[in-house]
């Protein structure tokens, strides 16, 4: 196909917006398009999704839906044919659960921490790996999962860690997501999504045959004038 014909076809695709989730066309800057999480209420609150080229933070207490929210983001991303990476220094990622959430596991690079090592070393190695992955430009989403670590352990990382990661990812079309137990990433300009657990949802009255139907969660964005959204995540049987 001649270059002129290809350019004309790309212009037509761009003008008609035939492929909103298609691969980037020549000259198209994808950094301006956020990555949708797949949760309508959440996307509406954060301007269409998590921004590329920035470090975003998703944090909350146990069973607040933080992992489900990030998996939904990753599932959408790999579903569009991109690659994602999950850096897991606590080795708590469950592949079966991710597959149930619609993640194509073959397109998700999973880095598992060495559980024999001390926690601080695992965290340091994980941050270095995230820097490598974010700098490679191959991955559309890079997740650093430190939710299993106490906040004071994460707080022991050098102060400029998050700014440094923000700078590494700034020129790439990747979104860097920090999954944590509490707000730890001070400095980067990406959004901080705080989640609160709204309790489990059961399928009926207590007794035999009852199922865990899902988890309720509330999301708040912005620390000074928080905006709220509620959502539910369905449990996999």
């Amino acid at each position, binding site marked *: 196909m001649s270059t002129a014909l290809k350019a004309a076809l790309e212009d037509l695709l761009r003008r008609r917006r035939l492929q909103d989730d298609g691969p980037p066309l020549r000259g198209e800057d994808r950094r301006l398009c956020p990555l949708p999480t797949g949760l309508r209420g959440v996307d509406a609150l954060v301007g269409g999704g998590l921004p590329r080229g920035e470090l975003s933070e998703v944090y909350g207490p146990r069973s607040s839906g933080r992992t489900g929210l990030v998996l939904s983001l990753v599932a959408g991303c790999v579903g569009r044919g991109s690659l994602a990476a999950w850096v897991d220094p606590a080795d708590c990622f469950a592949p079966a659960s991710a597959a149930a959430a619609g993640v194509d596991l073959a397109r998700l690079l999973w880095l598992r921490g060495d559980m024999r090592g001390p926690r601080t070393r695992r965290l340091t190695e994980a941050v270095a790996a995230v820097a490598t992955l974010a700098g490679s430009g191959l991955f559309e989403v890079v997740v650093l999962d430190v939710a299993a670590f106490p906040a004071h352990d994460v707080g022991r990382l050098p102060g400029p860690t998050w700014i440094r990661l923000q700078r590494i990812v700034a020129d790439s079309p990747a979104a860097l997501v920090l999954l944590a137990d509490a707000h730890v990433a001070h400095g980067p300009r990406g959004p901080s999504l705080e989640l609160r657990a709204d309790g489990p949802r059961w399928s009926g009255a207590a007794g035999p045959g009852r*199922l865990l139907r899902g988890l309720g969660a509330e999301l708040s964005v912005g620390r000074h004038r928080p905006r709220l959204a509620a959502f539910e995540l369905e449990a996999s049987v």
Partner: protein
Amino acid sequence: MYGCLHSPRPLSAEGALVDIAREFTPRVEGLGTTVLLDLQGLARVWESPAVLGQGLIEAGRGRGLDLQAALASTRMAALLAARGRAGLTVIPPGRESEVLAPLPLELLPLAPERRDLFHRWGLLTLGDLAALPAVGLSERLGSDGARLRRMARGEDDQPLVATPRAESFECTLELEWPVDGLEPLSFLLARVLEPLCAGLRARGRRAAGLVLDLVLVDRRPYRRVVRPAAPSADPRTWRTLALLDLEAHPPDEAVAKITVRAEATPARHVQFSLLDPAQPSPERLAETLARLQPWTAAGRAGAAVLVDTHRPGAFVMSSFGPGAPAAVPPPTSPRAAMRVFRPPLPAHVSLVDGEPAFVSAAAVRGAVVDRAGPWRASGDWWDVAWSREEWDVALRGGGVYRIFRDRMRDAWFVEGEMD
């Protein structure tokens, strides 16, 4: 015109005849102690076929080989004449059958029963066989009979199939002064890798692996093998991969000699699409994974693959090499995830009316305020059997967990946290 060189004695060095033949033409077919040469177009270089044939014999003599040579307009005539006649035989076009006629029938590749049959018929020479009527021979022996008759007449049954050159992609650099440290080695690696990769690209090849043979200053050999996720012929990528490998496994002495050998593989051909997502560059992916060497070397990085079993949480790790996107059906609604404890946390669970009422484990402790279960599952009774009773419990302090009782050991565990 075709030529043939034959050694009546077994050869000490395999391929010696092919090497002689390649001095005359690139198209040669090695057949053990015989080699066939395609001599088309050499008439302008050599004065006459006899001079060319003499040149072939002289070349063999120069290497200590006493060879028989034949030149003919067909491949088969040259082959039979070289095997059956001493010295040089030049067969003028159209006289193949006449020259071959006195040669023994054993020169043809005959099965023992076929040879016995021909002897019973009184056939002793190629001429005897060539003189038989083609139709009668074919009626009695089928297509094989007609084929053997054509061969006895010196007619070609198949074209010359050129033996490919043995490919070797290797580059060596002997150093005047030993080098110590990775930085000077980086420049030297570039010097050997660039011609090596250029050679690979010129032949339409890529390197699937790179064997780096170093000779250290104390004459000890030091070998490293780098095999990335995808083949490449990019010198920059290979240099980075080799350096990253040497960084992780540095030689303990200075390096005196570098030999790099590529494991060649055919180049990858990819049909690109305008509308499908662009695939990641294999070179960059290999480089990135090499940078994560502490993770990949210990098998802690890769893609998870679910195992076809009911055993909860079963998976294996495979190397990360994404192909075309799979059509994974998206879930109808966003799913809660499980965050597992590896290994499951041993727990003490208090029961009231057979239901969990209090859970106590490392980092998980609280009264159970709500629960669902029990769900019993078991399997692998023919191997390492497992049997468990699962509960999903919500604790007073927050958190929803999956706990289970191992029925084989009668012990409770916390498997993971719903999130």
